[in-house]
């Protein structure tokens, strides 16, 4: 049985979320500057106007997740509490 810690789970979730938001940030950025390519690749789903909307708002979760990603190791410095998954 795998065992994990609550802080470990939180940190891992934040890492993956940060990765997802970073990739989305990249894709929407290209959806603005290289909209012809991105529109084709996404089968017309990510249009330039949608890319602009998303890109304009993604910086907020990006900054929050980045700050958490940097700060959490310092917050959970104590001995981790183990839980069963």
């Amino acid at each position, binding site marked *: 049985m795998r065992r994990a810690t609550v802080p470990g789970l939180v940190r891992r979730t934040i890492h*993956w979320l940060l990765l997802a938001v970073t990739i989305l*940030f990249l894709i929407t950025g290209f959806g603005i500057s290289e909209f012809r390519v991105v529109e084709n690749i996404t089968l017309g789903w990510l249009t330039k*106007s949608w890319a602009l909307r998303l890109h304009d708002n993604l910086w907020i979760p990006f900054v929050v997740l980045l700050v958490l990603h940097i700060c959490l190791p310092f917050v959970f410095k104590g001995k981790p509490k183990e839980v069963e998954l």
Partner: protein
Amino acid sequence: MVRKITNLAVTLAMLLSALLLALGGCPGDITNGNGETNGDGSLEPVEVREYQGENLSSVNDFRENSIKGPQYVDIENYQLEITGLVENPASYSYDEVIEGYKHYKKVVTLNCVEGWSVNILWEGVLVSDLLAEAKPLPEAKVVIFHAYDGYTTSLPVDYITDNDILMAYMMNEIPLPPERGFPFELVAESKWGYKWIKWVTAIELSDDVDYRGYWEDRGFSNTADLDEGFLGR
């Protein structure tokens, strides 16, 4: 192990983004206006970078963001059509527009929704002069511009006439390069860049006040005023 993969993936994503941004942020230079010689030995015109004490951007400072890439219009067969709700529909060659109408110059800044802007000295003819010749019917409320690549956009007739809107054929004292909209680009001052239609081939007068052009139909504001957001209906 998972953490290592995560960290590696995040690092790779950031490196990739930096690389792509670096590659994407380098607009290609336009050969026109670099002081090179033509076949007959005469010098190519060189763009000016200052006008009446005001600094100008370069023709190379634009980013290519047209819907089908740069268009290369065959000027020998080019005709500018004035159609729709007008008394006198007309069709002009490039030379007929240039030689038949008074020229005006203006320094106007183009602001793109992508976040960049360029300050350029434009020279062209007034759209209102072209319209006056065609005599719009009273019910004509909107001017729809059509481009060589199928792009369209529209502006109210009142905006065109009240603001002395230019259709430019020169920028920074050189002829409009093909990549910048040769033969004509609309100088839609105080409007977002998607109203600055390039490669204009037709000007249509319409009574359809709800007409939406290419980007407007895809979620961009139809008024496109710079002091308002560009997203939304």
